[in-house]
């Protein structure tokens, strides 16, 4: 079957699924974007389904409050970010500061919109073969790097080979390992790239999108010296970077991008990124008017920003989690009854209220959560139930009580979450001892093999912070499979692993829904980890600032940002 024939069949399949009620319209848009349908084509599919084509679309939302004013060209925007822990190298960066900065100067094959949907960037279209093991990407033409060289398929192949090379120190290897190997990316011609995957992976476009932070495209000649020679295809070029202090970005005169009205991007002349580690200091700068934009705002400690009449805090549907993992290789967590007992002790509403003022979405210990991933099966809710918890403890022979230790880093709101778990477990007879250690200590030590001793992968019970992931499958791939690199639970459920591989190898949406339901059920029933909530993302800006795009997580696009005149 030719690719074109396959796409036609798949389009027909999507329309049929919506008409039969097996998919929502929103889900159709997401799956259509994964399989490389343009926004126009996806709109046509919706129209073919009947009814309104509005609603559930993935276009960027207008800023809250009044509508979007006309863009204002020129000027300087001042934005605040935490500084990068390391030097700026797109291959190795892993923290928010580095990722946001790099993504101003470099671009991904695929962007994410404000709802974690896919939209073309350096790739204009993409499509899989029938079992999603081979993906073909068509690249945008006429794009040049800031050093003057043309962006071509050979650059994509070199970039991806570098990212899956263990010697490169790539932070993307953990996500791409087992999916793509060196040599798997082939430049078919100057404008076409073929990804030959190690195994079928229906969510592959997400792995080369802005959700996979390191996959920005670099020239094939890249030598690992990005901080000294910052090169990319992005809307900005770097004028100055002082580590831990500031980064000045100026308009890239050769940038290819234009807005919907045909205006050259970016709108503004310059972005001054001020690098501030301390949240309180950053918030005070926002309140004093010295700063225009904070791409990611942590809720705890930032409550005053909501009441500031000069600021607007936009809320985006994030998917970040705080994983509470039970190490099933260690006592007492081999017994699923005990894991479930802890799960039934949690008052998730109260946790959400205490940590995020009720702004986050509740989770029920599965990644397949329809409030954050539209179209996912609805899991059974888990309201606090001490009788059930006590019964489970009794079934496990622990009716006299249970003593456990929860390891947690003094980082973000993790200590508060640990204290809430401690307090909510006590009435059931579960005595939680907290082991609070530093951020550095929790990630220190040997990370793999029989001698693994790093606390986040070896502690009996641990809280680990995870940023947003665009699909439940990407989360599961990273932490719930027997060969997952970052499994704090060390869960080894063969039924789940087999079902997961089937789920990733099919593009049939009815089958995916059935398999997704089964995966969700297995995960919730066996409870290798607790997922009490999915964190809503906050972005703070002056009320005069418009046009900031991105999913509100690490990635942030300010090419269409502007400051409206009063």
């Amino acid at each position, binding site marked *: 079957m030719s690719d074109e024939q396959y796409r036609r069949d798949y389009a027909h399949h999507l329309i049929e699924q919506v008409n039969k009620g097996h998919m929502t319209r929103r889900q159709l848009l997401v799956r259509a974007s994964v399989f490389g349908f343009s926004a126009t084509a996806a709109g046509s599919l919706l129209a073919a389904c009947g009814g309104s084509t509005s609603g559930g679309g993935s276009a960027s939302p207008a800023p809250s409050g009044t509508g979007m004013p006309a863009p204002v060209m020129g000027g300087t925007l001042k934005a605040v970010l935490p500084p990068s*822990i*390391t*030097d700026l190298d797109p291959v*190795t960066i*892993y*923290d928010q500061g580095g990722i946001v900065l790099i993504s101003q100067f470099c671009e991904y094959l695929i962007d994410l919109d404000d709802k974690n949907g896919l939209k073309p960037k350096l790739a204009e279209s993409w499509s899989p073969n029938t079992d999603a093991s081979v993906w073909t990407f068509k690249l945008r033409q006429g794009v040049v790097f800031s050093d003057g060289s043309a962006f071509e398929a050979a650059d994509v192949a070199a970039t991806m080979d570098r990212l899956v090379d*263990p*010697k490169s*120190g*790539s*932070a993307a*290897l*953990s996500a791409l390992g087992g999916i793509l190997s060196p040599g798997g990316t082939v430049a078919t011609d100057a404008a076409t790239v073929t990804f030959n995957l190690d195994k079928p992976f229906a969510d592959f476009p997400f792995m080369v999108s802005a959700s996979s932070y390191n996959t920005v495209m670099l020239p094939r000649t890249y030598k690992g010296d990005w*901080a000294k020679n910052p090169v990319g295809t992005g809307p900005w070029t770097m004028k100055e970077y002082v*580590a*831990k*202090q500031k980064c000045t970005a100026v308009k890239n005169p050769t940038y290819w991008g234009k807005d919907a009205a045909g205006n050259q991007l970016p709108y503004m002349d310059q972005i001054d990124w*001020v690098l*501030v*580690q*301390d949240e*309180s*200091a950053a918030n*005070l*700068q926002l*309140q*004093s*008017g*010295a700063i225009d934009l904070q791409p990611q705002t942590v809720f705890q400690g930032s409550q005053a920003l909501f009441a500031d009449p000069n600021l607007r805090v936009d809320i985006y549907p994030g998917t970040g989690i705080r994983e509470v993992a039970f190490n099933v290789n260690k006592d007492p967590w081999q017994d699923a009854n005990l894991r479930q007992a802890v799960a039934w002790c949690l008052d998730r509403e109260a946790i959400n209220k205490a940590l995020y003022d009720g702004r986050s979405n509740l989770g029920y210990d599965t990644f397949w959560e329809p409030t954050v991933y539209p179209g996912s099966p609805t899991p059974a809710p888990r309201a606090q139930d001490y009788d059930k918890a006590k019964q489970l403890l009794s079934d496990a022979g622990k009716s006299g009580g249970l003593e456990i230790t929860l390891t947690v880093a003094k980082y973000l709101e993790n200590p508060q979450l640990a204290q809430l778990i401690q307090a909510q477990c006590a009435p059931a007879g579960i005595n939680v001892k907290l082991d609070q250690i*530093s951020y*550095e*200590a929790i*990630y*220190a030590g*040997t*990370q*793999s*093999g029989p001698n693994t001793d*790093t606390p*986040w992968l070896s502690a009996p019970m641990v809280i680990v912070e995870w940023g947003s992931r665009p699909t439940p499958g990407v989360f599961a791939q990273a932490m719930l499979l027997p060969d997952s*690199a*970052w499994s704090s639970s060390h869960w080894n459920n063969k039924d789940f692993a087999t079902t997961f591989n089937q789920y990733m190898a099919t593009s049939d949406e009815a089958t995916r829904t059935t398999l997704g339901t089964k995966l969700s059920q297995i995960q919730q029933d066996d409870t290798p980890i607790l997922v009490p909530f999915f964190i809503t993302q906050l972005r703070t800006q002056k009320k005069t600032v418009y046009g900031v795009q991105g999913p509100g997580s690490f990635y942030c696009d300010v090419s269409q940002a502007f400051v409206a005149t009063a």
Partner: protein
Amino acid sequence: MLRLIGRRLLLMVPTLILVSILIFALAEVLPGDVGRSILGPYATDEQVRILNKELGADKPLYERYARWAGGFVTGDWGDSLLLKVPVFPTVMKALGNSLLLAGFALLIIVPVSIVLGVFAGLRRDSVLDRGITISTLSMTVIPEFVSGVVLLYIFAVWLKWLPVTAMPPDGSPFVSRFYYLILPAIPLMFLELGYIARMARVGTVQVLAMPYIRTAVLKGLPRRRVIFGHVLRNAMVPTVTVIGSQVGWLIGGLVVIETLFVYPGIGKLMVDAAQTHDVVMLEASVLMVAVIYMAANLIADIVVALLNPRIRMGG
């Protein structure tokens, strides 16, 4: 006097060597390693091992120390392992910033605290004495992160009289830096005022009880001459020693103030380097703070010697 200075300068050399060895040894017990800090929690052990080998971080401690110490003495301070920037200009710039903030703060702290302490000592047990003692001690017990946030909120966010950061925009004249340093200097004044004023008060009270002061008064010397000619000169000896010992903290210990006011000083640089195992940066910055600390104490000793001839003469 020259002998005193020479002896103290010679003592600085073994002290610095000892400090550098201690820092290198202590860095070993910090959690994590350089490769892990650079590559992050999601890198594999193999990736970390390869990077550590490239950086030479897998070599024995003594070998790394010898290489670093040799480079330090010859002026080659190397590059930061994490930030990949040259260490020498980075440390010197941060040190310069810290010196400026500390110097500006001392310009306010020293005269105000001495005047308050001497007044309190001269009016011992009076309402003025109790007022000064209670108010300065009250200010001292307020942690700088509390006073700093409150001051920032009142003067930068609410009244907008002073800037919210401690660094002016690029291209601003040098003199504008002092305007930006007013707000961060105030919490430092709060912290130091009580301590130094109390030393000045105690010194004044002790000197006032000395027989030579009674003699001077009974001789009929004017009060002003007794105070400026005899009391102040002798009462300042412990105060100057205390000020000297506080300079090291004012330069290397202002992590909270530097963080809150987004000021690129050496205190924050040291903490960041320690947290990320950037031993090259940590060593250089700690050593420079040690040098400044010793230099400040040397200057304090010289001032004390000038005030007290018995010390100058080795008595």
